[in-house]
């Protein structure tokens, strides 16, 4: 298997801060730490090229940098992509993250890098690449390159990959089932955790519940009677023929449907495609999922200014957070551009 390695201007020996605007340079002969990486990867993987790019260039002119690098990579054959190690260097870490994410999306190959836990690149790109836990500075070079190479060799040989904690990379937000490493029965694990918790001893939960990200509440609508309010929903209520073919579970898209001429959502014209519950009640009265009839009532009463002419919908069940966030961003942009003042979001 062949691999290509990305490093910054400093580790290529071009220079430091003053050379951080360096545009991409492509080497057919390995330079800098690529040589050490290649030596460790042998004989399973051959590192064929070193790509060098200035940290400022890739972070400030990302589009141009990627265009140039893609033009080079398009001509190359490779099964693995490396970047770094970036240690504590913040812009280098972000640069490694940018290139790893882009290469993974375009070429669908495993992308491997290494950063110190305090490098801001970790938080931003840990879901997009295997980021190995690295040292604080370049004196850790050998120590940090070693697990990158070892992991790549496992991939090249088709060996079973272990959980993040054992391999030594930052968890990518993926949880999978595994045999309990010690083969201990769940009931015994409960007893062990229970006794430790009762006795105030340290214990390790098997599922860490993260603290939530808080969004500051948006300011309220000043005058409801002048406001345009949009209906958004994850209830899966769509026109009966489901024109956008939204999936019944694990939805990967959303739809928007014009309701300017409607006072309600009649049975037989709309239905729910949500697979997470018995759909009979919502199909009989789709307004039970998206309450257009009630909104029209308040519109006629003058309580609200206007119901926005389109409603937005997807299916909530099994949808990953990444997709939910993507839908939210896309819909938010449309609503914002249309001057919508507020949103009622109905979910199931």
């Amino acid at each position, binding site marked *: 298997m062949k691999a290509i390695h990305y490093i910054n201007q400093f580790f290529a020996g071009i220079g430091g801060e003053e050379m951080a605007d360096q545009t991409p340079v492509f080497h057919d002969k390995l330079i800098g730490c690529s040589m050490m990486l290649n030596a460790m990867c042998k004989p399973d993987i051959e590192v064929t090229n070193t790509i060098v790019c200035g940290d400022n260039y890739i972070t400030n002119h990302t589009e141009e940098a990627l265009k140039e690098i893609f033009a080079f990579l398009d001509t190359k054959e490779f099964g693995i992509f490396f970047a770094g190690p970036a240690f504590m260097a913040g812009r280098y870490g972000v640069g490694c993250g940018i290139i790893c994410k882009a290469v993974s999306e375009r070429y669908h190959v495993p992308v491997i890098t290494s950063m110190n836990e305090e490098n801001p690149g970790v938080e931003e790109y840990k879901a997009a690449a295997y980021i190995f836990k690295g040292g604080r500075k370049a004196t850790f070079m050998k120590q940090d390159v070693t697990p990158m190479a070892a992991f790549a060799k496992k991939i090249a040989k088709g060996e079973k990959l272990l959980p993040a904690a054992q391999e030594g990379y930052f968890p990518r937000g993926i949880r999978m089932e595994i045999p309990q490493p010690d083969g201990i029965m769940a009931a015994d694990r409960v007893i062990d955790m229970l006794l430790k918790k009762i006795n105030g001893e340290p214990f390790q939960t098997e599922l860490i519940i993260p603290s939530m990200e808080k969004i500051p509440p948006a300011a309220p609508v000043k005058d409801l009677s002048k406001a345009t309010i949009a209906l958004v929903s994850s209830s899966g209520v769509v026109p009966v023929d489901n024109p956008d073919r939204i999936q019944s579970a694990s939805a990967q898209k959303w739809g928007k449907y014009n309701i300017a001429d409607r006072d309600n959502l009649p049975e037989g014209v709309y239905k729910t495609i949500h697979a997470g519950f018995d759909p009979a009640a919502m199909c009989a009265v789709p307004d039970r999922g998206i309450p257009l009839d009630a909104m029209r009532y308040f519109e006629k009463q003058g309580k609200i200014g206007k119901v926005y002419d389109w409603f937005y919908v997807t299916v909530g069940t099994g949808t990953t957070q990444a997709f939910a966030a993507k839908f939210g961003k896309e819909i938010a942009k449309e609503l914002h551009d249309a001057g919508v003042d507020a949103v009622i979001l109905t*979910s199931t």
Partner: protein
Amino acid sequence: MGKEIERTGIPVTVMCNLIDVAKTVGSNRMVQTVSVPYPLGDPELSPEAEWQLRTSRVEAALNALATPVEEPTVFPSKF
């Protein structure tokens, strides 16, 4: 989804069954719905009672949009 919309400054009232979930994903204005299969209705009720239920919950959601909040807040409805 609601979080991304609110991020742009548009207030959102989330009407859902699982208030606890809505809180975990960072919703700020919430109204409780009836159940998962029929969030804003109830096939067991008379049409009049169901209408009252639906308008009452939607009205609570609308009022929530016009109310300042500082933290995740559940707005009660009459029915």
